[in-house]
């Protein structure tokens, strides 16, 4: 792991070893996935989804926060407006994925598109965060992203089963601070990156703008607003060294 991540080369390695490392780095997230799966499963069961629907939703959507918000407004009697509404929720809550995908491009650009896009299709926040940390520490192997993403995707599908049946045990996710789980996960991943890079500007600007927007606008606009503001600030201010 001595390669400089800013060095551009024509090829990047894709190895099974890095894929295993990616999966291993995501092991700490497995308990959280099962607990979130239980919370999502509770809503699914309460709203009368069949087990097949719950499993398929985890497999195809694979985004806990969006699923939870959509399930809270899951209709009993459907029409096309309801379809539009749940798709709108998925858009609002998952807009951040546009930015996480964009941030991977400078690193993954040399990898074949036929490998990258399927992996991006099941990218989760945690797999993205682990990959960013791996890259910040000098890792360049695309296998890491693939291993982390596919491993956590399979874990999330598996989490739908106990979640659906025993989910009622976690009737209120707030009691266990599960509404904060993504903040905790990102904080844990960010801390070593920030300590290493000492690059506080995008963090401070991104956090301040996001907080201001979250106080003014409902929904999840604060995430893209803050992220874009922080990235722009870094581009305008210029290199630190």
């Amino acid at each position, binding site marked *: 792991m001595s390669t400089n991540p800013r060095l551009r080369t024509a090829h990047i390695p894709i190895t099974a070893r890095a894929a295993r490392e990616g999966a291993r780095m995501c092991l*700490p*997230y497995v308990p959280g996935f099962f607990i979130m799966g239980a919370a999502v499963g509770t809503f699914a069961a309460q709203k*009368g*989804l069949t087990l097949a*629907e719950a499993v*398929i*939703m985890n497999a*195809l*959507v694979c985004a806990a926060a969006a699923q939870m918000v*959509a399930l809270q407004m*899951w209709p009993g009697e*459907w029409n096309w407006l*309801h379809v539009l509404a749940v798709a709108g929720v*998925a858009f609002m809550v*998952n807009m*951040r*994925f*546009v*930015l996480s*995908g*964009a*941030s991977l*491009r*400078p690193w*993954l650009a040399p990898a074949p598109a036929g490998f990258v896009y399927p992996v*991006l299709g*099941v*990218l989760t*926040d945690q797999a993205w965060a682990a990959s*960013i940390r791996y890259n910040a520490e000098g890792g360049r192997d695309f296998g890491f992203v693939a291993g982390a993403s596919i491993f956590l995707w399979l874990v999330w599908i598996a989490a739908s089963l106990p979640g659906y049946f025993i989910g009622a045990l976690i009737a209120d996710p*707030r*009691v*266990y*601070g599960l*509404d*904060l*789980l993504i*903040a*905790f996960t*990102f*904080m*844990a991943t*960010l*801390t*070593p990156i920030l300590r290493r890079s000492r690059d506080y*500007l*995008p963090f401070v*600007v*991104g*956090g301040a703008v996001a907080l201001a927007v979250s106080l003014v606008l409902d929904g999840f606009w604060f*995430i*893209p607003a*803050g*992220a*874009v*503001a*922080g990235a722009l*600030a870094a*581009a305008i201010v*210029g290199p630190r060294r």
Partner: protein
Amino acid sequence: MSMPFEPFSYIGILAMALVTVCLRMTGYWIVGRFPLTPRFRRALEALPLALFAATIIPLAVKGGPAGWIATPIVAVAMLLTGKEAIALLVGVAVATIVRANGL
């Protein structure tokens, strides 16, 4: 619990999946359509830090005292142990204790 087959429910799930998968792919795709100038590269390199902050800070602030107390403790636990599993466990434990005390 046996429910009648509801095709709309599957259509709703598919619509959510389609939107989400498109979002996951478009950012990566769009960036590839533009030349990677030094300035653009700096923005993309800062993007993860900004995205982390833009998620953590509003969620922690809006999470009430549990968010205010537990989120910094996760960072401290991470600095002390270097283990994500321990940091996450400490965060959930602190948040549970704070909320159990009615805060």
